[in-house]
């Protein structure tokens, strides 16, 4: 192992779902302590901590330290929409690459159970009923719902429909089939918030949230946390052979934001920044899409999964529909996608998601995924996107040791 490589030494996610008796610090502590135990290290070994909790206000990192160990190390509280977890990972990796320390901890946590659908809330105007233009559009009433939609299921529905407009074939039934796949995958994941298979008829017949996304085609709000311990190659060489054997190499770590393009301020363009991040990640890792044994991508809605097949270059440009219909993204296919069940069934505790999907990939690369193990997995990719926008991609490789 090269000294300047970065490795995941320990990683863990909590069960996703309802944790009524635990607060965000409890969940973050559970994941962080489990990740350190998994890596055979303690807070005394950590040189940096990056922590994210999107809805919980600031300061999670220090609150966490006060429960699991106040060692005086620098804390970075990060916030980057649904890419917050990936941003925490990336922050620790940058500190390691900069040579500031040789080991660090990244944590993401969220409590969302019962929060309803993201982005559906409006901001009512004040009591007085006199129209007065305000904001960057000089609006006299809230524009959400009157001039298009701000709600996440609707925004991502349009993202999928736009792909259909460009390339064809993206029907309601196709999107529902993508969801059927992920719900089927979730039956093998005991940590998923929902782990029941759903038939195509059930999915299509469920409550319509924003056509063509019905309720089971939307990511599930839930509570959960995930944490990872990262280490430099130089430090890893000094650790035990068992630690070296279970360590997973971070072959690429990339974070992008959305570059300007016509229409990107009308409907968020989730394609440009994902494609850029993927290109950079494949270059960094020296692997191509056909080398990937599994992919965890950001299926916040069924309509989003389709476009990311293309953005991550798992298929030819414009070929996402054919790629899905070929069976490739199923767990027994050529390029398994979201074998964890994806955000639609595993759940989406926002700031935890970008570390939990890395955990899923590591779980398979270490050969520890039990009944849902992708046999012989050597290389995997984890992708998240947060609107606004931020895209995080990590490519992970099994240890050669």
């Amino acid at each position, binding site marked *: 192992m090269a000294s300047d490589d970065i490795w995941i030494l320990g990683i863990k996610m909590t069960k996703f779902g309802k944790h009524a008796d635990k607060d965000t610090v409890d969940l973050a502590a559970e994941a962080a302590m489990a990740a350190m135990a998994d890596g055979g290290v303690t807070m005394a070994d950590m040189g940096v901590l990056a922590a994210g909790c999107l809805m919980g206000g600031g300061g999670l990192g220090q609150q966490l330290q006060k429960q699991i160990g106040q060692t005086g190390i620098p804390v970075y509280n990060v916030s980057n929409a649904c890419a917050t977890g990936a941003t925490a990972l990336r922050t620790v990796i940058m500190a390691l690459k900069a040579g500031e320390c040789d080991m660090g901890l990244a944590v993401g946590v969220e409590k969302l159970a019962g929060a309803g659908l993201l982005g559906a809330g409006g901001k009512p105007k004040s009591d007085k009923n006199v*129209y007065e233009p305000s904001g960057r559009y000089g609006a006299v009433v809230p524009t959400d719902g009157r001039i298009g939609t701000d709600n996440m299921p609707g925004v991502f529905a349009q993202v999928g429909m736009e792909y259909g407009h460009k390339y064809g074939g993206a029907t309601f039934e196709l999107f529902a089939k993508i969801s059927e796949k992920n719900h089927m995958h979730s039956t093998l994941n005991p940590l998923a918030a929902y782990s029941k298979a759903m038939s195509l008829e059930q999915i299509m017949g469920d409550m319509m949230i924003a056509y063509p996304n019905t309720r089971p085609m939307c990511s599930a709000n839930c509570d959960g946390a995930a944490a990872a311990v990262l280490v430099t190659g130089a430090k890893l060489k000094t650790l035990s052979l068992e630690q070296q054997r279970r360590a997973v190499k971070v072959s690429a770590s990339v974070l992008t934001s959305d570059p*300007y393009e016509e229409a990107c*301020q009308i409907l968020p363009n989730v394609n440009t920044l994902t494609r850029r991040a993927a290109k950079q990640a494949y270059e960094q890792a020296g692997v191509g899409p056909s080398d990937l044994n599994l992919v965890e991508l950001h299926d916040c809605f069924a309509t989003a999964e389709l476009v990311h097949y293309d953005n991550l270059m798992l298929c030819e440009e414009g070929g996402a529909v054919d790629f899905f219909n070929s069976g490739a993204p199923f767990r027994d296919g050529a390029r398994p996608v979201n074998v964890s069940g994806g955000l639609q069934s595993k759940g989406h505790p926002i700031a935890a998601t970008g570390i939990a999907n890395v955990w899923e990939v590591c779980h398979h690369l270490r050969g520890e995924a039990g009944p849902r193990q992708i046999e012989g997995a050597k290389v995997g990719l984890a992708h998240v996107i947060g609107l606004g926008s931020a895209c995080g991609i990590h490519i992970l490789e099994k240890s050669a040791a």
Partner: protein
Amino acid sequence: MSKQIPVVDYLVLGDSPHLVAHECTSCGARFFDRRNACAGCFGTTFKPVSIATDGEVRAFTIVAFAAPGVAVPFVSAVVDCGGTSVRGNIINTEPDPDHVKLSMKVRLVTTSIGTDDDGTEAIGFGFEPIS
């Protein structure tokens, strides 16, 4: 006639209602909001341009839940108006996938949003199918 106010400042009322954008004089990028600079080329000079009122639906969704005061279901869409993308609702048709289609031709129309305590009427806009 009672006073009217556009729902947003980029909607121009009058005999032929239309939208106006700020066009970057360096790169031609168009924006509907108040600008500090251009997101494409960082230029700081803009000129107002009128946007075509006819367009084609490039993406849509039918939203079933919304904030209080917003009628549901409603159709949100991205409309290509002569090369400029515009966000708006599809109105004056049934909000279902049998009546709203990708690539459908539409035109901008105005609609009353309400009247405030001073008697001022807010005028919004949407796109209706061209039959």
